[in-house]
């Protein structure tokens, strides 16, 4: 089971060896990164098979907690670790003269992403979080345009603010409990963190980790970065990195912070995210910023879903999160040729009929039209919301429905333009093969999942049941703990 550490270590070591490999042989340097990510993804999938519905924890270097750092793998952790490797592989930045540097950063991003998913130590999570941040700064600025530097700068300011907030939260937690191991925190939380200090620590960490998850007040970087970064990187940040940040917040909620107020704060911020995101997307007039704002709205829905207490919330949240994880990168891949004004998209279906078809499929699933998976995910959230007693949850359900209406409006406004050819207007160029192939693959996965919905839902419910069980986590990391 020590192979678990390879999910983090392998891409990290390769990242720093890559410049040397590239100097020896340019061809080897080109293929090493994708190859290593393919290996780690395969390794993750085989670990998933071995684990079944049990979980495992390993102590790095043989030091037991609280002195050592644990890596904890249940189905949810491995799922997101694989998503981190596989997502980076699919959205491999590759091109340009700057290939070595970008490949290095992409590998660091994948390694730190897997680390975020697997880590069982709060400070370790903070370190991996900063590592993800630094790697993404470099990848965003890779376009080397004035706009990308300015957007990266503004992103760096927001992100550093968030990281410092998260660190303050970590300090408050350590002050109250004297440990940062998540399993020990879970044991101590009911007596030590069930107070105002615990709530303050949660809110600080929610703001901190929420920066990457496009949480409402700290998401000012989103439209600028997604409009100026290379589209594949935008897809990676919106699709994969945001989910990793969410995973941490969910872990913290399940294990450490049980106050009802914590859920209320998240619910309110999620609702505000949906309202602001969808309205801004409706008003946007260029393709990139439209899908950037729509991604804020979608992540708001995920926050609302995770704010439902207990296993039901984790289940519903995971369903929407995984749906978004597949749809958003595909959407950004289509933006490769369609970035720019929405009016310039007139007649786009003539040059790239497949891309237009894919966009419509993605749009239908995002809005939630049956029988696509997006419908089932949203339905699940709405059903769970309607079963809550607090009125704020009904507001959440209403906002999700209203958001869906807005989504339908702005996405179909674009889709109808594809088929409306105008005179004297040059339709945008056809998509490149790599983008189209990857987007088709993601869409095929989306459409294919319609046929296996029942087993998929059962699997997902199993993952959620395991992830929502705090005592299972404690027992796995520390078998001597009293049940």
């Amino acid at each position, binding site marked *: 089971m020590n192979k678990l550490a390879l999910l983090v270590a392998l891409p990290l070591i390769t990242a720093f060896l890559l410049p040397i490999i590239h100097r020896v042989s340019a061809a080897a340097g080109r293929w090493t990164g994708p190859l290593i990510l393919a290996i780690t993804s395969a390794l993750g999938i085989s670990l998933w098979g071995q684990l079944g519905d049990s979980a495992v924890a390993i102590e790095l270097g043989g030091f037991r907690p*609280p*002195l050592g750092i644990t890596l904890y793998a249940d189905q949810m952790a491995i799922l997101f670790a694989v998503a981190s490797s596989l997502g980076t592989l699919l959205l491999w930045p590759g091109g340009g003269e700057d290939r070595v540097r970008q490949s290095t950063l992409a590998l660091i991003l994948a390694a730190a992403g897997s680390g975020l998913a697997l880590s069982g130590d709060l*400070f370790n999570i*903070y*370190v991996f979080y*900063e590592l993800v941040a*630094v790697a993404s*700064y470099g990848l965003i*600025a890779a376009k080397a*345009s*004035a*706009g990308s*530097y*300015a*957007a*990266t*700068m*503004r992103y*760096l*300011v927001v992100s*550093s*603010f968030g*990281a*410092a*907030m998260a*660190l*303050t939260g*970590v*300090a*408050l937690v*350590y*002050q109250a409990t*004297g440990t*940062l191991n998540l399993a020990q925190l879970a044991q101590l939380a009911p007596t030590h963190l069930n107070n105002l200090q615990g709530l303050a620590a949660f809110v600080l960490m929610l703001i901190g980790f929420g920066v990457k998850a496009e949480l409402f007040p700290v998401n000012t970087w989103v439209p*600028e970065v997604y*409009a*100026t970064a290379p589209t594949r990187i935008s897809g990676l940040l919106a699709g994969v990195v945001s989910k990793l940040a969410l995973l941490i917040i969910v872990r913290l909620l399940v294990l450490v912070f049980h106050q009802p107020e914590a859920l209320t704060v998240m619910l309110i911020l999620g609702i505000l995210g949906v309202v602001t995101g969808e309205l801004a997307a409706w*008003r*946007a*007039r*260029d*393709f*990139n*910023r439209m899908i950037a704002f729509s991604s804020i709205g979608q992540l708001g829905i995920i926050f609302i879903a995770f704010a439902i207490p207990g296993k039901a919330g984790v289940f519903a949240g995971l369903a929407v999160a995984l749906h978004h994880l597949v749809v958003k990168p595909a959407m950004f891949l289509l933006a490769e040729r369609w*970035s*720019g*004004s929405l*009016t*310039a998209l007139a007649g786009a279906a003539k040059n790239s009929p497949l891309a237009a078809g894919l966009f419509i499929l993605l749009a239908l699933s995002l809005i939630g039209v049956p029988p696509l998976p997006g419908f089932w995910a949203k339905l699940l959230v709405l059903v769970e919301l309607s079963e809550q007693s607090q009125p704020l949850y009904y507001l959440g359900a209403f906002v999700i429905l209203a958001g869906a209406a807005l989504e339908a409006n702005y996405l179909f406004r674009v889709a109808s333009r594809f088929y409306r050819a105008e005179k004297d207007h040059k339709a945008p160029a056809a998509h490149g093969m790599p983008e189209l192939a990857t987007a088709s693959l993601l869409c095929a996965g989306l459409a294919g999942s319609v046929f296996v919905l029942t087993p998929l839902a059962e699997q997902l419910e199993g993952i959620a049941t395991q992830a929502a069980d705090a005592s299972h986590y404690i027992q796995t990391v520390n078998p001597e703990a009293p049940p």
Partner: protein
Amino acid sequence: MDTGLILYVAAFGLILIGSAGIVLSSHLVRIIFGIALLEAGANLLLLLATYREGAAAPIIVDGRVPLTMADPVPQALVLTAIVIGVGILALALSLALRVQRAYGTLDMREVRRRLEQDIADEAGIDMPSSADAPQAVISRQEGQA
């Protein structure tokens, strides 16, 4: 007054000053200083988490165990956090240099306006605020352009 309290006040003070600097300043170098202060405050708070007055270093010499020992864990953590902070600071300053070269200014309000303009130009649309913005905003934008 005891030392712990003063240090706590200092830590929260640094966090407040740093946050205020990030939110209120528009000069990029001041914002970066704000980040540095904020990080210093957070680090100090982490260090204070298990602070004990007059504690000895946690080293056992000749089998004698000191009565009160300092907790070494936050010190190790803070060391890591400081290193990360310095790295981010260097990156931020080098990016600030690039921004200054590209736009010829370090005023973040101006940088933001130019950034919006760049995105709009590249997309081939008007500035997002031009249609509905109050007259004062439009005239200011035109005056500066």
